[in-house]
């Protein structure tokens, strides 16, 4: 935590958790779209997001984030009409997600290049978020650190290859947290690598070149 977590963020109101946090959850989806336009969005709102979301503009905020807007962008207010203008196919459903934080959204998305994915994330207060699931796999990261998500096949040596490359080619980069999750043995897996400082974009390119890596995404500190 630093002083700007308290005096800040600059945001579009009315709620740091229901509006600013929701934009940030949307932005995680935007990052996972990996430069392609989101074309189909299915949003499930749970708990307080479902109960009071509309009066807080949570729907607008999530879509704004998915389209890549920031929580301080005046466009948040007009996100529904902007989404319609872009031909974005979106729906909202209210459903109680068992065991989830009160402010939780599940977002299923499809992109213009035909890929699809899913994010489960919660807004935990003051605009801070935690992401707990990506593409059906358990993850645990928040918006206050720089996070690299590496989607890869569950094969021996992939983790060593990624971390070795990071160590040898980006020696200043320190990993502060690491976790791994997989769908099934030998299936798709996801590495969550949190770093102290902001990794350069070239690192992401280098990770993508490693065998059995499907994709790598950098989610900057929000």
């Amino acid at each position, binding site marked *: *935590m*630093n*002083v*700007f*977590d*308290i*005096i*800040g*963020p*600059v*945001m*579009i*109101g*009315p*709620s*740091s*958790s229901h*509006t*600013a946090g929701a934009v940030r959850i949307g932005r995680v989806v935007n990052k996972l779209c990996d430069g392609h336009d989101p074309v189909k969005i299915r949003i499930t709102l749970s708990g*307080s997001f*479902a*109960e*009071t*979301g*509309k*009066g*807080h*503009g949570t729907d*607008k905020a999530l879509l704004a984030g998915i389209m890549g807007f920031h929580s*301080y962008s*005046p466009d*948040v*207010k007009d996100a529904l009409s902007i989404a319609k203008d872009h031909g974005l196919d979106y729906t909202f459903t*209210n459903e109680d997600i068992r065991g989830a934080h*009160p402010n939780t959204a599940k977002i299923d998305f499809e992109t213009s290049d035909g890929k699809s994915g899913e994010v489960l994330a919660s807004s935990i*207060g*003051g*605009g801070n978020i935690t992401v707990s699931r990506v593409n059906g796999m358990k993850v645990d990261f928040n918006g206050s650190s720089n996070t690299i998500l590496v989607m890869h096949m569950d094969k021996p040596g992939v983790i060593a290859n990624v971390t070795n490359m990071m160590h040898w080619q980006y020696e200043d980069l320190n990993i502060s947290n690491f976790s791994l999750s997989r769908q099934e043995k030998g299936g798709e897996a996801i590495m969550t690598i949190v770093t102290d*400082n902001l990794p350069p974009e070239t690192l992401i390119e280098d990770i993508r070149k490693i065998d059995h890596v499907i994709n790598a995404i950098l989610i900057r500190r929000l």
Partner: protein
Amino acid sequence: MKYESIQELVDEAVKSNEKISTVVLRDQAAAMDKTELELLEKMEIDFDVMKQSVITGGNKDLKSMSGLTGGEGFLMREYADSKNTLCGLFLAGAMSRALSVSGCNAAMGRIVAAPTAGSCGIIPGCLITMCEDRGVSEKDAIMSLFTAGAFGMVIASRASIAGAEGGCQAECGSAAAMASAALVELMGGTPGQCADACALVVASQLGLVCDPVGGLVEIPCIKRNATGVMLAFSCADMVLAGIRSKIPADECLDAMRAVGDALPDSLRETAKGGLAATPTAKKLSQNDHSVP
């Protein structure tokens, strides 16, 4: 610094014979690996957004998303300018600014969460008033935001700044406590007096519940921003008069956390208790077409 105790802030400032804001700016620049100038520039942007939100929110025709609130800042400004107020132009003006910023927030305008969106009017209400009506320089007001922020960091780690966790005492209470400490510093008070101002505000708001009508950041949040401003000024003035807080600030914060923990779920932002459970509140939220 760890920002886990108010006493730590006071001790560090006293040790180097500086203001709390000076110590915090230096410490945060080092922690964030940036220069002090970069941090000041970032804080200046926040201050500019605060000033703009006073203007946006002061619009006569401003309406919130739900249509339940709007225009409070305008009414208070007109009344303040009539010069026939109980509190005087200075405090009435501060209330009008707090109402405007909070109204701007409810209308999906741009604000600075300080520490949260629901309590975003209190710090600008106090500090912009010090600049515009008391001749404090913007540079000093921006510096004092580092003091406010440091107190906020300790409150966040020791108690809470989320209504869903600690009730409104954690949101409007925290904002008023942070603002009061900043006001004392701007008036030339000692670091210890800043801590006492924080303590007095926390003691005055202890137990305030979070009970938003319809779950929206509007009723009673917007008006609590105006009363929060009054609390910040009154506690700062008590301290500057030489009155001490008998209970140290850190112990007040521990009490705030314990009280927050003891609050039932219904009084922590769920809109199931307090004002939100009154017959009128239920009627208001039913008429609100934007509630799903």
